[in-house]
């Protein structure tokens, strides 16, 4: 009888991969809106995996930032652009072949390297509680933290500039 976290891992991993497949190649619908919705589901089940890894803060941040902010931005842009015509286009056979070959190659290489590396760290060591993460973030990583805030400001200025009707 496997333990509950192991069962939950398989459930969340299967959900993540299934929704990921449906983001990329949904057989029923080609529209970007369904892709965006399945991306939301992928992100939510991935935050379940984060919680199983005891990264509680990151699980919540994943839901708030990705499923909340980023995906709403995506849906706004999809709504802004009228993409009805895109739904009718077919997959290129060449693209499908190249994509599947590169998919298989990457999975093969990574699994092979995983097997040759044979990580022995199979018992969870750390307990990622939020207090320790915050302490680390504001002591050792203070400078990157501030730089990232400047980066967000720069991105905001850039977006406003890009979206202006006419550039002077």
């Amino acid at each position, binding site marked *: 009888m496997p333990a509950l976290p192991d069962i939950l891992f398989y459930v969340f991993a299967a959900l993540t991969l299934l929704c990921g497949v449906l983001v*990329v190649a949904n057989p029923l619908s080609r529209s970007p809106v369904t892709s965006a919705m399945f991306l939301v589901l*992928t992100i939510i089940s991935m935050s379940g995996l984060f919680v199983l890894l*005891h990264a509680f803060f*990151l699980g919540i941040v994943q839901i708030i930032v990705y499923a909340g902010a980023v995906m709403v931005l995506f849906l706004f842009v999809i709504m802004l652009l009228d*993409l009805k015509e895109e739904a009718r286009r077919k997959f290129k056979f060449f693209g499908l072949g190249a994509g599947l070959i590169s998919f298989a190659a990457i999975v093969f290489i990574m699994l092979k390297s995983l097997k040759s590396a044979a990580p022995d760290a199979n018992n969870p*060591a750390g307990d990622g509680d939020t207090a320790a993460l915050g302490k680390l973030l504001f002591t050792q*990583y203070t400078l990157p933290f501030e730089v990232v805030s400047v980066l967000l400001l720069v991105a905001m200025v850039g977006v406003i500039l890009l979206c202006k009707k006419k550039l002077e």
Partner: protein
Amino acid sequence: MHVGLEHYLTVSFLLFSLGLLGVILRRNLLVIYMSLELMLNSANLALVSFSRFNGKLDGQVLVFFIITVAAAEVAVGLALIVALYRKRQSAHVEDLTSMKL
């Protein structure tokens, strides 16, 4: 079977390859962008599982920064797509061939 580091890494690899498949297969700029997000997320999953099984929190701090940078990147990228759509009336990679010889 006991779930260890390999299981999480396998999920992360599969997700990364799915993102790559999407970038190659799909022709819509927005869906390509979503596949890029998928690849970023799979890297995040690998980092969090490394951090968990090594007992160090630095991986989680890195994931925190990756999420922030990804949010900024999405904002700028989508603004670029909107600006492109305004000029060309299309968000489809096959219509954007002005740099082709």
